[in-house]
């Protein structure tokens, strides 16, 4: 492991892992307390359409996936705020259509031979300096927004009806949480991949929720747990030459099982 730390790609992986852990700790907490896990899953899979568009038109992958995911988040916000009936059906539709667009455009891209498995299962060891810059900017934006609007976001998340009566624009904050979730999902895809992103956004958060007395603490504890799971997963990945994203999730899942076991023995 120490030997690995001397490589640039591994250093980048660790930095990206920490940044994505902070992001997923903050945004994952909001997703869980607002009960938006299915929505976040929908956005994650829909963003594959953005990856396909970026590949087909030769655009940066992060940019394509981010724009597409944000549009998906806005669409889902509109549907969930105005069309309460059959929300799950609409989300399922958007989810499937996004993935279909991505697959078809990648099929149609002439001479494209990059391993698309890296988007499905993550490629943290292939993180570039540009990727780290993008993730850093997003982390800074998310922390700024949370700092500035923490009490409003807390009120909307805890009791949206009461927040609305106090003059808070609930629809704006609901949409904002979904848009930030979309951007976070895109960078988390780089670490653990599309298939596993929801696990990263829920497992550490679930443990943190049980250990925290406030939303802010939950975000911090989630970030720390995510970082630990990412380090351990990377070590497993490097030591046994297995996929990094899957290793991170397996470490998270085993930790969750141990946590639940301890909780059952010592409630």
């Amino acid at each position: 492991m120490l030997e690995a730390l001397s490589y640039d790609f591994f250093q980048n992986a660790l930095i990206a892992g920490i940044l994505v852990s902070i992001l997923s700790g903050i945004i994952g907490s909001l997703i869980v307390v607002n009960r938006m896990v299915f929505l976040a899953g929908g956005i994650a899979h829909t963003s594959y359409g953005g990856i396909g568009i970026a590949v087909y038109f030769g655009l940066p992958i992060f940019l394509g996936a981010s724009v597409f995911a944000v549009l998906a988040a806005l669409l889902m916000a509109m549907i969930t705020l105005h069309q309460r009936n059959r929300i799950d059906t609409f989300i399922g539709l958007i989810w499937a259509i996004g993935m279909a667009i991505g697959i078809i455009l990648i099929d149609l891209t002439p001479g494209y031979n990059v391993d698309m498995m890296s988007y499905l299962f993550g490629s943290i060891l292939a993180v570039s300096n540009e990727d780290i810059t993008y993730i850093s900017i997003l982390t800074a934006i998310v922390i700024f927004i949370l700092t500035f609007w923490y009490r409003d976001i807390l009120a909307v998340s805890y009791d949206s009806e009461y927040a609305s009566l106090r003059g808070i624009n609930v629809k704006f904050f609901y949409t904002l949480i979904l848009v930030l979730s979309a951007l976070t999902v895109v960078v988390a895809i780089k670490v653990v991949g599309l298939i596993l992103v929801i696990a990263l956004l829920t497992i550490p958060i679930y443990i943190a929720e049980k250990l925290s007395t406030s939303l802010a603490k939950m975000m911090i504890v989630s970030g720390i747990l995510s970082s630990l799971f990412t380090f351990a997963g990377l070590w497993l990945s490097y030591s046994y030459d297995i996929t990094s994203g899957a290793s991170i999730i397996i470490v998270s899942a085993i930790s969750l099982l141990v946590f639940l076991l301890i909780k059952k023995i010592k409630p």
Partner: protein
Amino acid sequence: MSVLSIENLDYSYGKDKVLENINLSVEQNDFLAIIGPNGGGKSTLLKTILGINPITHGSITVLNSQASKSLSRIGYVPQNTNVNIDFPIKVIEVVLMGHVGEKRPLFGYGEDETLCALGALAQVSMKDFANEKIGSLSGGQRQRVMIARALCAHPEILILDEPTSNIDVEGQKQIYDLLKELNKNITVVVVTHDISVILGYASKVAHINKHLTMHDIKDEKQLHKDNEHFCEVELLQMLNSNTKSCVC
């Protein structure tokens, strides 16, 4: 002085008229209980007063202003069952939400806001629980915290939706005793199924089943002073009745 006035209010969900020609006047320091059968329009009336439902016909005036412009002067306590008990939040943070929407420092809460929240908690005898997780409290304690949150915004009218649902008898009594105490300075409006409220605490009863019928408890008791149990039986009948008026 009328603090809440409703005139000729109608409300429909699509073609289904839920409220028809509602007229209601609540005076300062009244303790009004709104009762009626399920589906009779109690919650719809509450949501319309609070501006959650748009007014399509008629008018609602709160403290001499349009209801929508006076929401900050109304304290609202939602149903106990609407509270997410798994949410990681301390009691003091819930009460501080009473200040949400006001101008404030960049992060967290000002010292004056925290003092106000602690004062509101003291008012409902929950100050010692300020740093407890809300989910660790009993139903009655949680409801007192919600009342403290409403008090934090210094309301002139306190509106409560089924404040004692899923709360044990002792907890119910504590809540109503607290409301009676608060009623010395604040007008209280309670949507409820609890007959005890009507008999022991409320000064007026509004029975809603699409239409509204008002009853002044003091007047009724005076009218039936020879029969000390008159109202209990009649009001119970009224709660279970689907008729639009009562004979109490």
